[in-house]
């Protein structure tokens, strides 16, 4: 039923959703949403710069993601982390704007960089996305325990021989890698919502780290699949659906968690009254 064009779209978007769900778990756990906002902005500036110079967009995007992540890490160690992150966002957006004003790109391509071009992915792009995605997942699996402990309680990680500056660096590199994978497909703005919404929802629903990661991934996948279908049918931009569904998933999960808690309390009361 699907044309190969749709299959490509589906494959690329699925990969991106999976890694966003997994890495987003650690982003939310570390309270690093702001970082996940900043690195894709760097990627945007990098891609704009690359197209200006006529070199590979993916290269420029990757280089700037890396640069952005390292800058945040370096400045964050010397001052307030949120200030360093915020300034990176602003500088990168400014650079992106400058590069765009110099280049003669079509507006649609700039639009794609910001909001993604899920419905027009070529076969070679899919291959790159899948390979980078696999590398990201492998990195998370390798660093799972150090990342989990140092994200939850940096104080304890230090005493288990984990240097928080190193774990932080590994985390930032991971965000840069995921950004490089995802921005060409879902765009610099949507990347962020896909990392935060599903992971936030999952953490409200489950208290087990492994379950929460699986849930986060599942919610991210559903968000993307539904968005592709809805965008295909309605011809509305996919960004609208991804952003809205990610937000809705979070609100629904919070409500569900609150309802479950209330039920647990009333069951307990009933039990107490019955005794």
């Amino acid at each position, binding site marked *: 039923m699907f044309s190969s064009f749709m299959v490509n779209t589906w494959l690329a978007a699925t990969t991106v959703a999976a890694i966003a769900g997994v890495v987003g778990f650690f982003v939310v756990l570390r*309270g690093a949403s702001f970082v996940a906002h900043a690195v894709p902005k760097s990627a945007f500036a990098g891609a704009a710069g690359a197209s200006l110079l006529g070199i590979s967009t993916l290269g420029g995007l990757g280089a700037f993601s890396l640069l952005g992540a390292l800058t945040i890490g370096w400045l964050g160690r010397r001052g307030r982390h949120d200030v360093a992150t915020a300034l990176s966002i602003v500088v990168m957006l400014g650079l992106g704007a400058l590069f765009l004003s110099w280049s003669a790109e079509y507006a649609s391509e700039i639009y794609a960089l910001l909001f993604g071009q899920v419905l027009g992915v070529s076969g070679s792009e899919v291959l790159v996305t899948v390979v980078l995605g696999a590398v990201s997942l492998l990195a998370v699996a390798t660093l*799972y*325990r150090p990342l989990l402990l140092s994200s939850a*309680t940096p*104080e304890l990680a*230090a*005493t288990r*021989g984990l240097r928080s500056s190193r774990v932080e660096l590994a985390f930032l590199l991971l965000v840069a890698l995921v950004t490089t994978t995802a921005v060409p497909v879902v765009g610099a703005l949507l990347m962020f919502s896909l990392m935060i919404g599903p992971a936030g929802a999952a953490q*409200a629903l489950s208290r087990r780290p492994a379950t929460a990661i699986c849930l986060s991934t599942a919610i991210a996948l559903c968000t993307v699949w539904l968005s592709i279908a809805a965008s295909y049918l309605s011809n509305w931009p996919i960004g609208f659906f991804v952003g809205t569904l990610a937000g809705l998933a979070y609100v629904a999960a919070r409500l569900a968690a609150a309802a479950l808690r209330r039920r647990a309390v009333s069951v307990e009361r009933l039990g107490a009254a019955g005794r």
Partner: protein
Amino acid sequence: MARPGRRLLLADAVSTCPPGRHGEARAEVLALDGVDVWLSGRKVLSEVSFAIRAGEFTGVIGSNGAGKTTMFRVVLGLEAASSGQVLLDGESASHRSRRSIGYVPQKVVLEPDLPLRARDLVGLGLDAHKLGVPWPSRARRDAVDEMLAGVGATSLADARVGTLSGGELQRVLIAHALMSGPRLLILDEPLANLDIRSGQEIVELLAGLAHGHNVAVLMAAHDINPLLEVMDRVVYLAGGRAASGTVGEVVRPDVLSRLYGHPVSVLDVEGRILVIAGSNIQAVGTLEDDLGEHRH
């Protein structure tokens, strides 16, 4: 609740040295030798020297800002000493040898909706430094359950760590610190947020670890009194300097006056020790005799 401290499996430590507090001279687990620490141009610790041995319970007593946390951070390698040495098992402390230290920090900030159960946190005490995903195994699960039971926290196993009360969290953090079978357990003011009963339970638990399982326990506190019954040694910190020895050797007007740099009195009020500034108060001299009653 399970009797704390009885079921802890610290097999290595237990088998190498028989339990009991008055055995033959034991190996020094930790020694500080003339440690100076400067922070932001201020000398926070000066010439701190003391040693603690396996199976000993040592209290680190000092008021706010005396340098207790700083001293622990130096032992853990989180802060550097500008001069002096930290020895673990007689050798200069290294990144690797510091893995054998269990540490319960003074403050641990945990978000209430952190997706981490008490049992997950305790499990991470075992292998958080390892790479790869931990496959759930029976042995790992049993070790975690055993440790939670040992600190009397079985009923908390499945609660989110961020929702635990101060005393509950304290137990879980102790379990986390004990998972790697440390020979040295450092606790930074574990009694600060606890009511008297929970405080006593924690102290008994720690004394059981030291005297029954041969762990060297080093614990900071503002107040010496809750520890009098179980303490083998005291490290008294004031003005960045330290005096150490048994309580009778250290908590004396002459020693403490020298440490504080001004006259202080040591009073015994119905079995509680009070250290106060000034020497024009009728002091009790040494506390050796009074303390004899507390100890057995």
